């Protein structure tokens, strides 16, 4: 399972608000730092296990299920898909 951003979805830095924002057709999401870290690895090449491992270097006690939960929520919002 390799997540990636859906077509037309962009993760970018908003200098006005000093925040990471996710821009997509007809919408703006402000992901929290964890979701941002996950989204930055949604490239269609990195697996959930690899994302979990990468996050473990930044945060304590990261579990694959937590990463899957975040990705499922993002998929429901139509911004992430599985490849």
């Amino acid at each position, binding site marked *: 399972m390799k997540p990636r951003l859906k*077509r037309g979805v962009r993760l970018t830095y*908003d200098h006005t608000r000093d925040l990471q*924002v996710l*821009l997509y057709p007809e919408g703006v999401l402000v992901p929290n730092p964890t979701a941002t870290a996950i989204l930055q690895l949604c490239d269609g090449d990195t697996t959930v296990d690899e994302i979990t491992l990468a996050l473990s270097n930044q945060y304590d006690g990261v579990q694959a299920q937590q990463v899957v939960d975040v990705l499922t929520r993002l998929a429901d919002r139509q911004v992430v898909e599985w490849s």
Partner: protein
Amino acid sequence: MTEAPLGLTAELTHRCPLHCPYCSNPLELLQRDQELTTQQWKEILTQARELGVLQVHFSGGEPLGRPDLPELIEHTADLGAYVNLVTSGLGLTEQRLNTLVDKGLAHIQLSVQAADAERANKIAGTRAHHHKLVAAELIKRTGLPLSVNVVLHRANHDQLEGIIALAEQMGADRLELANTQYYGWALRNRDQLMPTKEQLAAAQPVVRAAIDRLKGRMQVIYVVADYYEEYPKPCMYGWGARQLTIAPDGTVLPCPAASAIETLNLDNATTKSLQEIWYGSESFNAYRGEDWMSDTCRSCDRRGIDFGGCRCQAFLLTGDGAATDPVCRKSPDRELVDLILRTPVKPAEFKPAEFEMRR
């Protein structure tokens, strides 16, 4: 507290090759010589991004009617905003499209009038349908996400299934099925456009089935016919809360229909900064918060859900922009809406002679 705006609709022109009788542009269409220059638009777009705008919707009229569209898209994309094009598809050649994508266009919303060419061309008042099929194919080839926008009314509600099938064939990522909102030309033609109760009831299971069946492939959004609802729509998520619209001559509007509110003192982006207008103007502050609300709204526990409904609709139906949206069943003016719904309707057949087509 007023927060920074998220979205800007840039109505580059009122000129349009289509003549849809439900057009949301005002009845008094602005002419080419009243439109802002390229430089004026660039300055406004820069200000908008500084103010916090993250999504820019280039709309009209037909925005492709502006030869400087690629330049404006490039400018906006370079500012870091997400660029959306709302188009009829007429005039969208492969070469033009590729230029727009190169300049940073991120998403296209393509309007469709009906399921088949005969009906669609009648509604558009011109031979437009085949151009849309070609445009959809070109857009898909670029890899950009495609939204298909359909305005629903009495003369196309019977084609709902066909319209959904067409959007699927076009490979749309999103399908917006929006019942007509009655402003501008649509208000003028309301008697002919208003769907019947039966049509709306028939649409429900069709929409629900499509949402389920197409989940993950095509997002289906259905905007209800608010006259038939018990409570008003949460219009713009509150006045001056998230969005602003700039008309072709630089007039800054809290919502695309706001020029309908004749009592509103509107500002122009060529004479005042967007920052001043967004935070400080009379027009943007007119219906912010709750102080302006009627007792009906102020004492209602839905006021945080629908913000009293649509200000433009309140003004157009009652003459008072601060009235409770008359769609609301708690509104003392609900009878106005019921009276309109009780007006007997003619059969659901589209006869252009019965409409006042947009010029």
